[in-house]
């Protein structure tokens, strides 16, 4: 059993009561809400005659269903409009802060909470969305929940939970130029499998993790869930504190020093013990691309689609399904596979550093003939910051569409979707069958820089070659410590 880890400490601090049947009632420090998984939960509260116990600890935004071309109301899709109206009504009725369209703070829920400074080390964070693991980048214990649990958090600011085991994922060395946090997590999932993390929280540690910026740590923790781990986290350090300082909802004044002292003490100490440990060498990781229908079916960009003989027996049935669905022959090199659509965005890779990394590839080049490429910033703040740097102009000049913020083609609940058997290079997190809005559409997951490389090449391409070429001076993603765009007082 793990002991002395950040996970253990945060769990103990938030333990409200032991419940019959062996589960724990856990206090939820921050509850994030969006339009898709909350309406039934609010309705259930109403049915039970209950109110929201601590509305000041819930924060809402709208992201999944918003169109990214025109966000004028009412939306053309009447069901999307009804969902947003329902969220607006529920938040108004219960006194919950809603960062709506045009507020300057709207965006994908997992992008806005960190950039507002809402997500902090040592918190428990819950949201009706599986990629809530993102917030673990700050040393928070953050996990996705179902609609009936959203109801429970609204009613009681707590959840009935079972404690997870803790696996430390230790990464030595440094990521090389053109290799990003996305490649690291795709590599980890490829190695441990999509079910490898079931029952575990992942602690990411080691020199390569310490060197990551906060935005890269978010990308890493975001996809812990795709490896089966309900939450993933990084111990808070100077990088974490530097990111948080000055954000609208971060502690300020005298409280800041006390906060940093408390946060520093939460990290897993040298005496911490783990249920399991796995080691990786960052230096050996190449830009990674998925070729199949699970995020675990990834390979280095210089590799070939694996043949059945190269796979373990238990991987062969899903691989056979993937060959058929993706129409990719075993043994063909992944570099060179033609692409139809390129998508840069999502809660995995829709932040400013992601757009900068993609822009570094797109600069001075043009989207290849016949390819539709678009960039969807993760939030209004990301969009405005990118526009202030001229990234929108750069992308437009290179033939990309520049859109309004939202989840967009990550799950295609809005009008952005693949058609027919189109194949996309996508910076999102799921390559499941039909995920991007067409029942036969195909998705290759990769880093934003790799998506940009695919866009300008017309096929899967090794971004390291493009970065080495003279048009583009930039290597790895730059550290982002930009000033928060907003300075208004925090509302929750």
């Amino acid at each position, binding site marked *: 059993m793990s002991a002395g880890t950040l996970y253990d400490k945060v769990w103990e*601090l*938030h*333990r*409200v*009561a032991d*419940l*019959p*049947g062996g589960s724990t*009632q856990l*206090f939820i*420090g921050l509850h994030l809400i969006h339009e898709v998984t909350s*309406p*039934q939960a*609010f*309705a*259930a509260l109403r*049915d*039970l*005659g*209950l109110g929201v*116990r601590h509305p000041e600890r819930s924060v809402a935004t709208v992201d999944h269903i918003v169109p990214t071309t025109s966000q004028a109301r009412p939306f053309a899709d009447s*069901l999307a409009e*009804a*969902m947003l109206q*329902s969220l607006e009504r529920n938040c108004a009725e219960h006194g919950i802060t809603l960062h709506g369209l045009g507020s300057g703070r709207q965006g994908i829920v997992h992008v806005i909470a960190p950039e507002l400074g809402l997500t*902090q080390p*040592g*918190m428990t964070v819950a949201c009706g969305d599986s990629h809530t693991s993102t917030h673990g980048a700050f040393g928070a214990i953050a996990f996705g929940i179902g609609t*009936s649990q959203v*109801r*429970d958090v609204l*009613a*009681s*600011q*707590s*959840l*009935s939970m079972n404690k997870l085991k803790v696996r430390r994922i230790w990464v030595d060395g440094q990521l090389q130029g053109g290799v990003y946090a996305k490649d690291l997590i795709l590599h980890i999932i490829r190695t441990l499998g999509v079910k490898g993390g079931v029952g575990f929280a992942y602690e990411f540690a080691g020199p390569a993790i310490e060197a990551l910026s906060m935005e890269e740590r978010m990308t890493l923790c975001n996809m812990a869930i795709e490896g089966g781990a309900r939450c993933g986290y990084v111990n808070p350090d100077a990088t974490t504190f530097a990111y948080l300082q000055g954000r609208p909802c971060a*502690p300020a004044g005298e*409280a800041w020093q*006390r*906060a940093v002292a*408390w946060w520093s003490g939460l990290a897993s100490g040298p005496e911490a013990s783990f249920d399991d440990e796995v080691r990786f060498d960052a230096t050996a990781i190449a830009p990674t691309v998925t070729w199949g229908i699970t995020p675990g079916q990834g390979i280095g960009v210089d590799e070939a689609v694996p043949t059945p003989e190269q796979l373990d027996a238990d991987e062969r049935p899903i691989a056979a399904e993937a060959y058929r669905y993706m129409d990719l022959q075993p043994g063909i090199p992944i570099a060179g596979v033609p692409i139809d659509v390129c998508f840069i965005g999502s809660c995995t890779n829709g932040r400013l550093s992601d757009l900068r990394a993609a822009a570094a590839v797109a600069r001075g080049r043009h989207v290849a003939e016949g390819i539709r490429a678009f960039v969807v910033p993760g939030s209004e703040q990301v969009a405005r910051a990118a526009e202030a740097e001229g990234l929108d102009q750069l992308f437009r000049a290179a033939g990309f569409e520049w859109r309004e913020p939202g989840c967009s083609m990550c799950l295609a609940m809005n009008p952005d979707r693949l058609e027919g058997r189109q194949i996309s290079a996508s910076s999102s997190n799921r390559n499941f069958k039909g995920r991007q809005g067409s029942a036969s559409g195909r998705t290759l997951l990769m880093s934003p820089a790799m998506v940009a490389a695919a866009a300008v090449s017309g096929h899967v391409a090794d971004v390291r070659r493009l970065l080495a070429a003279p048009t583009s001076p930039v290597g790895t993603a730059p550290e982002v410590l930009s000033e928060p765009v907003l300075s208004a007082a925090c509302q929750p």
Partner: protein
Amino acid sequence: MNVPSFPIGPVRSVEGTAVVLSGDDIDTDRIIPARFLKCVTFGGLGEQVFADDRLERGGAHPFDLPEHQGARILLVNRNFGCGSSREHAPQALMRWGIRALLGESFAEIFFGNCLALGIPCLQAPHGRIKALQSFVEANPSTAFRLEVDAARLHSGDGQAWPLDLAPGPRQMLLSGQWDATGQLVSHDRELLDTAARLPYLNAFSTD
């Protein structure tokens, strides 16, 4: 529709008239057709329960017959609720007014979804369910009382039918443990104590 409040806390008994739905393997797609799943709330599901079957039978479906309006107990046969795991199916039945099901057998996920709403599903052998269904069809206005602890159905005129309910679900219903929300809200004192010791809720003062 006049629907009573939804279950909360311990479920010890269910009272009301019954409605019979004969047939084996009635799946969740028939209980609530897939096109009703894209919804903002479960609120409308009560009217949509068995929508396609009811349309097909043009008012002759048991759920449309005047004598069964207000029924609280549903009598079914074998493997009721099979198919997709959609929580919408028990929700739709509950919102129509059903508070307990009696049948020969239930699909496992459906049984669990009902339990999570505080709706008991009790079993009895083929012969006893058939006899009970015939009795209800002949006497639709008979009011019953279902005792969860004794697993027994009583009619107003003194008849009683023994039923089966496994000890686990029975205990969950009687103690109110099926209701996670109820348990969580009952610990408000402990919740405030926890909040009081969390630095980030107290301006990071450590004392």
